[in-house]
């Protein structure tokens, strides 16, 4: 008896979004696929998932010692950090303007401009620029960043339900891409994409961040939310067809497994191996359900995820 045909015919396709233009030596396209992750037998996987390395404008005081060991001195200088990240295989630099947070330095628009300029000069890669995650300061520094990087097609984020207007307007005015972030829910993601789209920003300039939890800390929820988003998108729902970015490094490195080796069960194994795997396995699990762009922290997990993606693309 012949094996029944199991190929799906999807009505929809994921939107392709390109990061980088102008002085960027390299541009990175994400999305564009017409099937679920790496099912090369039934559709095209137009672009490989890309890897961004997270760089902060302020020496992080709460990062795992393992990350500090891996990056060393460059952590005090976002330009050097970005250059090293490029050397170590990033496709994109995810610059976090964390020092703008009222409790972590409260720097302002001028500082943001200077930092963005320095980092643009230090690397040829496209940028993501994140605000500190506090509404007013996000508005202040992300507008500055969007203006400073005009012509470079950077991504700015996060635009959330509570504060998307100013950020989307800045992206629109300066030809940038916007990251739409919603808390782990298909309908909220959809709603935000619609609101942002209504402001007139074209679809090829929106990336969505459906929020993730780390391995052992909610990754299964992202797995299922992302899969539902992706199936709806391929099924033809145009409001969910944006490529997905996930802040894997941030989530994985705040878990106990990654952060510490003090008084943990012996069964948890070698600390460095465990911590790196915590990030790499979170990343690969999300790649398995549709991630298009991963923001990572450790050079070794970057190398592992990159090689895994090479292997997954080899069937194309």
């Amino acid at each position, binding site marked *: 008896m012949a094996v029944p045909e199991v190929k799906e015919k999807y009505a929809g396709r994921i939107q392709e979004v390109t990061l980088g233009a102008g002085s960027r030596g390299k541009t990175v396209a994400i999305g564009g696929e017409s099937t679920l992750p790496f099912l090369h037998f039934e559709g095209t996987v137009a672009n490989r998932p890309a890897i961004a390395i997270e760089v902060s404008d302020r020496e992080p005081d709460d990062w795992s010692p393992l990350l500090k060991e891996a990056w060393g001195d460059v952590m005090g200088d976002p330009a050097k950090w970005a250059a090293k990240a490029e050397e170590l295989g990033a496709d994109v630099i995810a610059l976090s303007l964390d020092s703008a947070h009222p409790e972590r330095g409260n720097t302002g628009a001028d500082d943001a401009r200077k930092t963005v300029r320095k980092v643009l000069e230090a690397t040829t890669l496209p940028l993501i620029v994140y605000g500190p995650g506090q509404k007013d300061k996000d508005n202040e520094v992300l507008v500055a960043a969007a203006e400073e990087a005009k012509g470079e097609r950077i991504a700015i984020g996060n635009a959330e339900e509570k504060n998307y207007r100013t950020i989307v307007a800045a992206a629109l005015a300066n030809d940038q891409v916007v990251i739409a972030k919603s808390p782990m829910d298909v309908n909220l993601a959809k709603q935000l994409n619609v609101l942002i789209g209504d402001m007139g920003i074209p679809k090829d300039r929106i990336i969505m961040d459906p929020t993730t939890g780390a391995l052992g800390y909610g990754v299964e929820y992202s797995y299922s939310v992302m899969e539902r988003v992706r199936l709806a998108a391929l099924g033809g729902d145009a409001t969910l067809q944006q490529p997905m970015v996930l802040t894997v490094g941030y989530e994985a490195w705040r878990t106990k497994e990654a952060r510490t080796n003090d008084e943990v069960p012996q069964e948890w194994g070698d600390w460095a191996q465990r911590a790196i795997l915590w990030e790499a396995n979170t990343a690969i699990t999300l790649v398995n359900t549709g991630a298009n762009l991963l923001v990572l922290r450790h050079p070794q997990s970057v190398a592992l995820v990159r090689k*895994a993606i090479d292997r997954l693309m080899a069937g194309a």
Partner: protein
Amino acid sequence: MALSGIQIYKVLPQTNCKECGVATCLAFAMKLAARQAELSACPYVSDEAKAMLDTAAAPPIRLITLGAGDRKLEVGNETVVYRHEKTFVHQPGLFLRLPASLSDADFAAGVDKVAGYTVERVGQMLRTDGVAIEGASADAFAARVKQAVDKGLAVILLASDPAVIEAGLAAAGNTKPLIYAGAGADSAALAPLAKKYSASLTVGAAGDLEALAAATEKAVAAGAEDLVLDPGMTGWADALALPAQLRRAAIKKNFKQLGYPIIAFPGSLSDSAEEEAMLASLLIGKYAGLIVLDRFDQAVVYSLLALRQNIYTDPQKPIQVSPGLYEIGEPEPGSPLLVTTNFSLTYFSVAGEVEGSGRKAWLLVADSEGLSVLTAWAAGKFDAEAIAKAVKTTGVAEKINHKSIVLPGAVAGLSGELEEELPGWKVLVGPRESIGIPSYLKLLASQ
């Protein structure tokens, strides 16, 4: 594929004799369709009808059992392609491959590593399942199999010579081993052996699903029932594509010939333990039933067990603990009182840190319907009112001689409202992550 009551009724005797305990054959058929009755309750069904109903009722992916006793492993019996459609039910078994040619000491060490590995996570004990033993001479093989079975492990017999396989089967006794004779082996020829020893049998075909279906048909014709599929993955993309096709064929098309669990060997497609772990993660996420590892680093195994636990949690029901007042380390009236939610992960993160600190504390677990601190807060299920209610219903005030309560740092913003809800109480704000609890308790004690 499930049958309707009417379809079942058509093959029943239709005499309404009531011996099944139901008034009519039709009513009995309806109960069968709703899975509220067993076909065996009707003494008059024909063998033919029985066979038809059995096939129709069989799960789309056959349930396979390996091992015995408290390490019995069941895989298969899945009913959905996507986890959110319902849930994935049977976690994939994790095995370590051990060549029988290892020295006695090395082999014993390998077996001990697997048998001895258990780790607690979110209140559950997680562990690996067994070993896959790679053939040698019949005698040596039998001895190795016995060694593993004696430790309670499930075994996969990796051997191609029927005499060696039989030695292994005999040594495994009634522990339901799995025969794996290699991707290219003629499994039908091994069917009688599998049957004789109630073992399951792997059927392989390199990357060709038509050939694989033909091979399972042949093995079934030769008497085998419990099959496992090796679709012959030659790369990582295959490791996603082949299981996806098998799962769809079995579940969406009810294609019985491919309705069996899948076995995978990620180590042979990887250059390091980390890569092997990542491929195993992909396979846990999508559709492997048995995963045989070549390397056993504790960190790797721990991350895979955590992922397996995550993916196989029912998406509709977060793992929860009962709300109430928990005592950590025999607390005294003067011990601090901490409050958290009843999401298991949250509870065990906090309880674990308090225990680890060696200090005593009261842990008040509010009913948040199984949600984490911030999720419950955002959903309005962990607010000042809910916390005050937990304080009152548990009667904690009578057990302690102070009136202060420590909030999770993530919801520091609740302290004002909570002080209003609990007049006379002092609300303290603890650290944001539970990892900060030991030093926080130390600080509290010194004040």
